């Protein structure tokens, strides 16, 4: 699946997007975050306060317990500040 990052999450991770193949026991958005945090300091820093990070699957906002089934693009970003 493709992962995309925005704003300070992107800066901390160190890239705007990447393709990953998480292990088969990664079933939800929260599982994916937990797995990403094991991938290095940048990820650990980006997701250190998991509760503030927002996620979207295929351009739709989702909660941490949402299943990744069939997800093509998962996005992680800080709370939005547009308008």
């Amino acid at each position, binding site marked *: 699946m493709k992962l995309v990052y*925005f*704003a300070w999450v992107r800066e901390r991770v160190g890239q705007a997007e990447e393709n990953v193949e998480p292990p088969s026991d990664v079933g939800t958005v929260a599982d994916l975050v937990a797995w990403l945090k094991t991938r290095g300091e940048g990820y650990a820093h980006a997701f250190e306060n998991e509760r503030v990070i927002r996620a979207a699957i295929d351009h*739709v906002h989702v909660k941490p317990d949402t299943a990744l089934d069939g997800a093509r693009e998962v996005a992680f970003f*800080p709370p939005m*500040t*547009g*308008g």
Partner: protein
Amino acid sequence: MIPAVRIQHEDFDVAAEIEALSAGRMDTGAVASFIGLCRDESGRLSALELEHYPGMAEAEMSRVAEQAASRWPLIGLTVIHRFGLIRPGERIVLVLASSSHREAAFRAAEFLMDFLKTHAPFWKREHLRTGELGPWVAAKAADDVAASRWER
């Protein structure tokens, strides 16, 4: 009614957008508008940089617009959000809602802004007058409260 949703770097012409929304519609009695501008925060900022999530920003703005259209008897809706570097005094966002009567237009415009702030994937970063890159703007709890009051 199909809402007009646009994301662009360029500025928009407010009068032309109002004209486009109401032209030829003899049933329109009210157009409510909201225009969000870039502040200089007491001279501290040289610009705001707006990052967005292409694809999702359009999709989410359209979803919010459809929600507004399902809640109030609207004749037209226009939502334009700019991205990129925007200087103090420049326009960032435009919401126009038209209806036969003012109440629906006012409420829909307010609803749209409350939801755009908390749901549309845009992030502001400060550029300082000193020439330095400033921090990402932090989300305000008050914006979540403003959005939650529309829940039913």
